[in-house]
C-alpha cells in the first residue's frame, strides 16, 4: 500500500528489530474515534517525526506509546514482543519515556526531588538524600544542563523547566524517548544543546519519537516522518528528501500554496507612539517606537526580550515606571485595559490557555468577551442575546470555525480553532490598533495560513497591527517594518528593505557577545 515505507531513511541498519511497532492501533472515546488503525514503527537510532494538524491524533498516539492511555484495539510490539503498556510506569520499565508539552514538575520541590519523584532512593525506609542529589547531578552533567540540583523548580525559567522535564526521562535506562514539541519554549542555544543530545542518543541506538510543527527542525534532525490526518495513518516519508509542499499536502489533504499572503502596505497616520517606556522590573527598558495605521509592525526577539512586555505595558496590563505612551494623539499612560479597549486598542495574549480563553465556556462567550459594552450586543442596560448570537455566528463563519458550533466549550476545540475563537475578538468592535502576541503558536499549517490572511486583511482595512512573534519567517513575511528586542530594549529598527533573516538574527545576540 505504501512504498515509501521501504526507503532507506534512517542511518541505521534496516534489519534491526524495530523498538516499537504498532499495528492497526485505534482509540475510541465516546462518540469520537481519535485514532483509526494507525501503523507506526520506530527503529533503533532514528528520529521519527510525527506530523499532522492539531487534532490529527499525534497526542493520542504518543500517550498510548507512553502507556498513559490504552488503545481500544490493535497491537503494540516492543522489540518484537506483544506488549500491553498498562501504565506510564510499565512503559518506563521497558525504557520508554515521554516528555509531554505540559510539565509534570512540582514547583515547590527541588530539581533533584523532581527528577526522582515516584522513584526515590530509600535506605531503611528513609530518603537517601545524598544519593538522590548525587545521581541528579550525574544526570544533569551527562546531559550538559547547567542547573543546580538544589534549586527549587519555581525559580527556574520555562526553558530550564523544560530541561528538567527532559532530564526526568533519563532516570532509567532509555531506549525510546518521546518528545512533544520540546523546543516550543527553548532559546536557540538551548535548542542546539537539545539537538546535540538527541544526536548522542541516536548514536547509542535510542529511538526518538518527535512531534513538531517546525519545518526547520524536521530537516535538521528528522530521519523519517509519519503523517497523520483525522486520526488516520497517511504515509511515512523520508525527512531529508520530502519537500515542504508535499508534507503540507499530506497533512491537509489538499494543495496549499505559500502560507504567507502577499501584502501591500499603505501606512497612514501614526496611531501609537511610545517614548522612553520602562517597567519597574526592567523587563522593558527605555523603549521608543511608533506604529502607523495600515501597517504590520513586527516585534522580534527571544523569549523575555521585552517584545511582549512592551505592548503589555502600553495596554495597561503591566505597570510602567517611566515613559510616555500616546495613542492617536492622546496620552494613555496608566490607562486600564478596559479603557484602552473602549478607545480601540486591543492586545491578544500569547498563551491562549492561561491568558486568553475561558476554556470551559462557550465560543460565543469567549468571542464576545471584549465587546460586552459595545452597542451591537447591548440593549440598554441589558445584553442583546440576538445581537450577540448574530455577531458571533458571523465571525465563526468568516473565520471558518470547525466544527462551527459556537455554543460548544472552547476546551473541546483543536488548538487552531481555539486560537480563532480568541482572534475573533479583534473583529467584535472597531479597533484601530491590535496587538497579536504569538498568534500562531501551537497552530497547524492550514490554520496558520488563514490567520495570516486574517491579519493581513485587518492591515488592509487600515488597522495598525503589531505582530509579536518568535517565529522568524512570520516576522519576515508579514511585517513591513520590524523592531528587534534584546534584554528589554529595542536593539534595532529594520525597514522592509533590510528585513532579512541575517539582519534580524544578528541583532538577537549582538550585545551578548560583547
Amino acid at each position: 500500500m505504501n512504498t515509501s515505507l521501504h526507503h532507506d531513511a534512517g542511518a541505521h541498519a534496516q534489519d534491526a528489530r524495530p523498538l516499537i511497532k504498532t499495528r492497526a492501533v485505534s482509540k475510541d472515546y465516546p462518540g469520537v474515534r481519535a485514532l483509526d488503525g494507525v501503523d507506526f514503527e520506530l527503529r533503533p537510532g532514528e528520529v521519527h517525526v510525527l506530523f499532522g494538524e492539531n487534532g490529527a491524533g499525534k497526542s493520542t498516539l504518543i500517550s498510548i506509546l507512553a502507556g498513559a492511555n490504552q488503545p481500544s484495539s490493535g497491537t503494540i510490539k516492543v522489540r518484537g514482543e506483544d506488549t500491553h503498556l498498562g501504565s506510564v510506569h510499565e512503559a518506563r520499565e521497558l525504557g520508554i519515556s515521554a516528555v509531554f508539552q505540559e510539565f509534570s514538575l512540582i514547583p515547590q520541590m527541588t530539581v533533584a526531588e523532581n527528577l526522582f519523584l515516584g522513584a526515590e532512593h530509600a535506605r531503611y525506609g528513609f530518603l537517601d538524600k545524598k544519593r538522590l542529589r548525587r545521581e541528579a547531578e550525574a544526570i544533569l552533567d551527562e546531559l550538559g544542563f547547567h542547573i543546580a540540583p538544589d534549586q527549587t523548580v519555581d525559580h527556574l525559567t520555562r526553558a530550564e523547566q523544560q530541561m528538567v522535564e527532559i532530564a526526568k526521562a533519563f532516570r532509567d535506562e532509555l531506549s525510546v524517548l518521546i518528545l512533544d514539541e520540546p523546543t516550543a519554549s527553548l532559546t536557540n542555544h538551548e535548542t542546539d544543546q537539545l539537538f546535540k543530545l538527541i544526536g548522542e542518543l541516536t548514536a547509542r541506538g535510542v529511538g526518538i519519537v518527535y512531534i513538531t510543527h517546525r519545518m526547520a527542525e524536521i530537516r535538521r534532525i528528522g530521519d523519517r516522518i509519519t503523517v497523520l490526518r483525522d486520526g488516520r495513518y497517511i504515509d511515512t516519508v523520508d525527512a531529508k528528501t520530502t519537500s515542504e509542499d508535499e508534507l503540507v499536502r499530506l497533512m491537509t489533504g489538499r494543495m496549499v500554496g505559500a502560507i504567507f499572503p502577499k501584502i501591500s502596505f499603505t501606512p497612514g497616520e501614526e496611531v501609537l507612539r511610545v517614548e522612553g517606556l520602562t517597567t519597574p522590573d526592567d523587563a522593558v527598558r527605555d523603549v521608543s517606537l511608533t506604529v502607523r495605521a495600515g501597517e504590520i509592525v513586527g516585534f522580534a526577539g527571544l523569549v523575555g526580550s521585552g517584545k511582549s512586555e512592551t505592548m503589555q505595558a502600553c495596554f495597561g496590563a503591566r505597570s510602567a515606571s517611566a515613559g510616555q505612551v500616546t495613542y492617536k494623539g492622546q496620552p494613555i499612560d496608566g490607562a486600564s485595559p478596559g479603557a484602552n479597549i473602549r478607545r480601540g486598542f486591543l492586545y491578544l495574549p500569547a498563551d491562549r490557555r492561561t491568558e486568553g480563553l475561558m476554556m470551559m465556556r462557550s465560543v460565543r462567550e469567549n468571542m464576545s468577551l471584549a465587546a460586552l459594552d459595545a452597542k451591537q450586543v447591548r440593549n440598554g442596560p441589558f445584553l442583546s442575546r440576538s445581537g450577540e448570537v448574530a455577531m458571533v455566528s458571523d465571525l465563526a463563519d468568516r473565520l471558518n470555525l470547525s466544527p462551527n458550533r459556537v455554543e460548544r466549550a472552547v476546551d473541546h476545540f483543536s488548538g487552531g480553532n481555539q486560537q480563532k475563537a480568541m482572534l475573533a475578538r479583534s473583529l467584535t468592535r472597531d479597533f484601530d490598533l491590535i496587538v497579536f502576541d504569538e498568534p500562531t503558536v501551537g497552530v497547524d499549517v492550514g490554520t496558520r495560513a488563514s490567520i495570516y490572511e486574517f491579519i493581513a486583511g485587518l492591515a488592509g482595512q487600515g488597522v495598525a497591527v503589531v505582530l509579536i512573534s518568535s517565529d522568524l519567517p512570520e516576522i519576515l513575511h508579514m511585517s513591513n517594518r520590524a523592531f528587534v528586542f534584546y534584554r528589554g530594549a529595542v536593539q534595532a529598527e529594520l525597514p522592509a528593505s533590510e528585513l532579512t533573516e541575517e539582519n534580524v538574527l544578528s541583532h538577537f545576540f549582538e550585545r551578548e557577545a560583547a
Partner: protein
Amino acid sequence: MADEAATTTASRRSASDMLKRLFVRLGILPFLLVIAIIVFTLMSDNFLTGRNLMNVLRQSVYLMIVSLGQMLALLTGGFDLSVGTILAISSVVGAMTMASVYAMAPDMVWLAILLGCLGGITAGTMIGVVNGVGVAFFNVSPFMMSLGMASVGFGIALYLTGGVPVYGMPVAFGDVFGFGTMLGIPAPVWVAAGLVAALYVFLYQTPYGRYFYAVGGNLKAASLSGINTRGTLFFTYVLCAAFAAIAGMLLTARLDTGEANIGASMPLESIAACVIAGVSLRGGVGRLENVVLGALFIGLVQNGMNLARIESYLQTVVLGALLILAVIADQIRLRYVASLKD
C-alpha cells in the same frame, strides 16, 4: 424538575454510553433527585403529597437564598464560609433595631419593621464588604478571608446579645414575613422567587452577569478583555452577603427572635446545594436554575429523612456524605468530558 426526571428514566433503558452523555450534560443532580424521590416515597406515605411538597419549598427558601449568593462566590472561583455568620449578624442587629424602634414608637409598627430590616441587611452586607475588600484588593484567599470573618461576625453577634435571643419585635413582622401567605403561597417563597428572578435577569441578561463567569473562567483573560476584575470580585462578596442577610431577616421573622446561633449549618449546606447543582469549585461553571434545584434537593432530603424518622444527628452524616459524593461525581464528570473531547 419533572422533565429532567423523565429524561433520566428514559435513559435507563438505553445503553450506558447514553447515560454517560446525559451525566456529562446534566450532572449528578437529576439522578440524585430521582433516587431521593423514589426512596422517600417508598419510605413514607406522606412524602409525595402536595402539602408536604409545599412544606419542603417553604423550608428550603432560606437555604435557597443563601445558595444564590454562594453560587456567585463559587462562580468567581472562590467561596464564602461566612454566610452563616452573616445570617446571625443580620438576625441579631435586625431584631435589636426593630425591637428598640418598636419600644420607642409602638404606633409605628411598619417603620420599626422597615428600619429593622434595613439595619439587619446592612449589618450583614458589611461582612461581605470586608470579605470583598480582602479578596479583591488584598488578594487574601477567599478561604482565609471568609473563615476569619466567620469568626469575627459570630463573635460580634454573641457579644451584642450576650448569647441570649433578642425578643420584642412587632408581631406583624413574624405574621407577615414568617407565616404570611399570598395566593396560598408563603411570603418567604415570594421573596425567594423575586430574588431568583432578579438574579436571573442580572446574570443572564446583562453584561455584568457575564463578568462573574469571565472572572471565574479565566481571571487573566477577563482582565485583558477590559473587565474590571477587582470590582467584580468585590461585588461578588457584597452580593453574596446581601443574599445571606435577606435570608437572615426572613428566618428571624419565622423564629420571632433574633438569634446568634442560626445559620451554623449554612456554609456547608449552601456549598453542597451549589456543588450538587453542578457549580464548579474551579469557577466559571454553573447555572442559577440548577442551584435553585440543588437547594430544593437538600430540603427534600432533610424533609424525607424527617418523615422517615431518621435521627437528626444521622442527617448531618448524610448531608456531608452527599456533598462529598457530589464532588466525586464532578470529578468523574470532568474525566468523561476530557475523554469526550479528543
